[in-house]
């Protein structure tokens, strides 16, 4: 067979506006992909991204929408086909297991009758043959014949979902489209559905188009992944690559928002909302939510282009490293009062990256060099060797105006708030201080910025509060003031060195959640330094483990926690309080 089995070119589905005078909703807006015979492709994306609309368009089921572009099945053009010609293709060549199995069955007929229906219409089987086939099909999806005699309302959602699959498979289609086969199922049923789909593919060579936001299922079922955002493809590539190393900021956000059994991290969605398909943003559709958008993103739509083995629609070629440190080294020399002078290698050949909008946890026991590394990164110390680049620009430890401008975009939240603020300044003065140093804005503007920053950390913005002094504040309040001071310059990266260690447990949890919320909302990169793995894993996307001045292990939080590579990490994990027992026993779902 030459060429792909299914080839989709510039497919668009538009829905007429709900009210006259409104623009039409462009639910699918120029999507192209191909599916080889026996191949598998997953389409992933948030709710409302157009996945179901796309799936229906492939079967010519667009009751209210108008479809343009091209869909070719084995060379035959399907768009604009009339109903009469669609009929023999549907179910026999392309079948669809719909998203909502709960409402997908006609309530007045028994399941068996509904499964048998296409067998009789398409394959012309006798009723006895069709019944035998239906019995075999239900057995294949792990159900019994009694399920065939049941009416839809007599079955559970999971049973209906499987019967939907059985029905979709009945005519042995060349292409099976499955819309959210695992949603709303318990873990066991979900695993069974995945196993079933794998089995069917292996046995029959059915091509699979999987639509899902269950990324773990996608990883197990699809070779290719296409990420759909607001009706357009953002990233397309091999599932293994895309899911383990997402490159488009949206894919990256999607993976971070994905609940993974092996992570105990609190979920954080992608900031902002999916745009309304009737009013898509100009330029890159993702730009209002993208943490690294540049001016061009607002104006020009990025084309879907080949980029290192995959397709990517991003002007910047995907996720940018916010901070990149290479081969950093720092040695302290003790001055030898109590013995011979000694060299302490606090940081030894450390390289790391922090991406846009990412939370990286840096953990290690006390004395492992975490704080030194943090101070190197924010420029409070200068390394003996190695280099640091921020947003691609080298960060030099000099006072040139260029590096000052870069530096104000990296802020440090120090471990002990009392150390870092002058006891003689009021709250208002503390927060305003960095602005005064910069001296760029008018006093009124500065006052506003101070208010905003205080509001962001959940502190009062009353004058009475602004006039207070550090000793009049609780530890939690003072730490918030320090965070507000870091925020007031609108940094792109915050290095927080044990930001909550001075606080009690409840205040710790509150503050770390707040920090995460601010980070997510503003799209700031956050390097969170802590010895407390239990705390870090709640918010970090990635975890780096440091020991004796070196980074000995690093990776996605889920992986590091579920499958620590290093004994040292395991020891840290054991030491972490309130560690959920199940995380340790589950295998990482992601490759």
């Amino acid at each position, binding site marked *: 067979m030459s060429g792909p089995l299914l080839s989709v070119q510039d497919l668009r589905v538009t829905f007429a506006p709900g009210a006259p005078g409104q623009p039409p909703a462009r639910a699918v807006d120029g999507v192209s992909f191909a599916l080889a015979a026996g191949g598998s492709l997953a389409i992933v994306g948030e709710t409302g991204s157009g996945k179901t609309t796309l799936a*229906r368009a492939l*079967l010519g*089921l667009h*009751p209210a929408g108008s479809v343009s572009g091209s869909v070719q099945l084995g060379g035959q053009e399907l768009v604009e086909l009339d*109903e009469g010609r*669609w*009929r*023999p*293709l*549907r*179910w*026999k060549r392309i*079948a*669809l297991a*719909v998203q*909502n199995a709960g*409402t*997908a*069955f*006609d*309530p*007045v007929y028994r399941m068996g009758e509904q499964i048998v*229906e*296409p067998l009789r*219409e*398409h394959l012309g089987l006798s009723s006895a043959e069709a019944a035998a086939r239906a019995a075999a099909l239900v057995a294949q999806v792990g159900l019994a014949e009694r399920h065939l005699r049941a*009416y839809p*309302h*007599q079955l559970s959602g999971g049973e209906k979902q499987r019967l939907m699959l059985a*029905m979709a498979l009945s005519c042995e289609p060349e292409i099976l489209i499955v819309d959210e086969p695992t949603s709303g199922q318990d873990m066991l049923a979900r695993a069974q559905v995945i196993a079933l789909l794998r089995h069917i593919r292996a046995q029959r060579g059915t091509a699979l188009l999987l639509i899902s936001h269950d990324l773990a299922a996608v990883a197990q079922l699809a070779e290719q992944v296409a990420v759909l955002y607001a009706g357009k493809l953002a990233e397309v590539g091999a599932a293994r690559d895309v899911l383990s190393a997402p490159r488009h900021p949206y894919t990256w956000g999607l993976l971070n928002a994905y609940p993974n059994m092996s992570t105990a991290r609190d979920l954080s969605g992608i900031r902002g909302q999916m745009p309304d398909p009737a009013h898509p943003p100009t330029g890159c559709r993702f730009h209002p939510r993208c943490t690294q958008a540049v001016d061009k993103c607002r104006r020009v739509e990025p084309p879907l282009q080949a980029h290192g083995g995959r397709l990517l629609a991003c002007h910047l070629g995907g996720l940018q490293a916010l901070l990149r440190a290479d081969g950093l080294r720092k040695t302290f020399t003790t001055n030898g009062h109590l013995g011979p002078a000694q060299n302490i290698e606090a940081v030894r050949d450390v390289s790391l990256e922090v991406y846009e909008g990412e939370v990286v946890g840096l953990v290690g026991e006390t004395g492992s060099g975490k704080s030194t590394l943090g101070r190197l990164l924010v420029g409070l110390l200068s390394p003996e060797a190695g280099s640091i680049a921020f947003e691609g620009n080298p960060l030099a430890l000099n006072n040139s105006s260029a590096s000052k401008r870069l530096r104000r975009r990296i802020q440090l939240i120090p471990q002990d708030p009392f150390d870092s603020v002058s006891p003689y300044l009021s709250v208002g003065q503390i927060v305003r201080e960095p602005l005064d140093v910069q001296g760029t804005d008018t006093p009124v503007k500065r006052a506003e910025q101070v208010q905003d920053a205080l509001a962001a950390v959940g502190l009062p913005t009353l004058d009475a509060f602004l006039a207070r002094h550090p000793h009049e504040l609780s530890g939690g309040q003072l730490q918030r003031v320090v965070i507000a001071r870091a925020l007031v310059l609108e940094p792109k990266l915050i290095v927080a060195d044990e930001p909550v260690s001075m606080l009690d447990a409840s205040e710790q949890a509150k503050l770390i959640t707040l920090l995460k919320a601010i980070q997510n909302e503003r799209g700031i990169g956050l390097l969170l330094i802590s010895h407390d793995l239990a705390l870090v894993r709640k918010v970090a996307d990635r975890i780096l483990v440091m020991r004796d001045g070196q980074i000995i292990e690093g990776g996605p939080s889920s992986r590091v926690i579920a499958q620590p590579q290093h004994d040292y990490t395991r020891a840290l994990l054991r030491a972490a309080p309130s560690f959920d027992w199940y995380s340790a026993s589950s295998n990482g779902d992601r490759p």
Partner: protein
Amino acid sequence: MKRRALGFLVSLWAVLTLNFLLPRLLPGDPLAALLDPNSSAYVFNSTTRASLAAYYGLDRPLAQQYADYLAGALQGDLGQSIRLNQPVGELLRAHLPWTLLLTLTALGAASLLGVLGGAEAAWRRGSAADKALVAASVIASNAPVVFTGMILLIVFGAKLDWLPLAGGRTAFARYDTPWDAARDYAAHLVLPAATLTLALVGSKFLLVRNSMIGVLGEDYMLVARAKGLSTGRLKRHHALRNAIVPFVHHLAAHAGFALTGALFIETLFNYPGMGRLVFESVVARDYPLIQGVFVVVSVLVLSANLLADWLSYRLDPRLREAP
């Protein structure tokens, strides 16, 4: 379903009891007045008066009256018509079949037209044909039956002289074959039935069209289409089959309306059903007959509802398990 049947029996009992109590509780003692020579309602015919006195038995204790009444009613004894001096049961037996014939014919025709038209209009909603049908049915269901009846009568009866003007059959006719009889009955039935059909068909059409449109938007219709089924199968086997369920209930709820419509039309066409009987008995304050009609109409409406319950129970498997 058992509960529905039980409900039917309870309602039946309530209707009969109400029928027993109402005249006895009415102010002014209307029953006693029938037998009171000083009252304006006094029944002069002595045999009628005797049978009324026996039927109501006002001199007996109330419990006894009630027991006698129930026993009589269940055997079809509903008293004696004052005006016609005949047993009410007998009068009803003579006239009810005509009314039933008219009502059921019209209900059947209106249902058939409403269902087929409604289904087709929903399938092609928005088309010119759909819009025309909707407009026509709104007009038809709002036009007074007397008005449409008159028009039909003038056009087909008087002007074109195709159909008989009045009556249920040709007077004094003798039929050679049953076929001749049927033809004569049918010819007399056409105009009244058409009038009633016109009055009924609009709401049926609109209801079926609406519920069909609802069904067509259901996920299972999308799946049925995705399965590549033929249009006929989609339309009838899936869409109409589901849309018909609410229709059945509508039909039952509409039975009372159809019956009253039939009574009006019968007077218009001088059809031998209960229509004339009812109006004349109301004018003459023929209480026993009015009450008899009330009981019969109530029983018919109750039965229609029971039938509808049973039908929808057959049609919708979801109801079978409902308590």
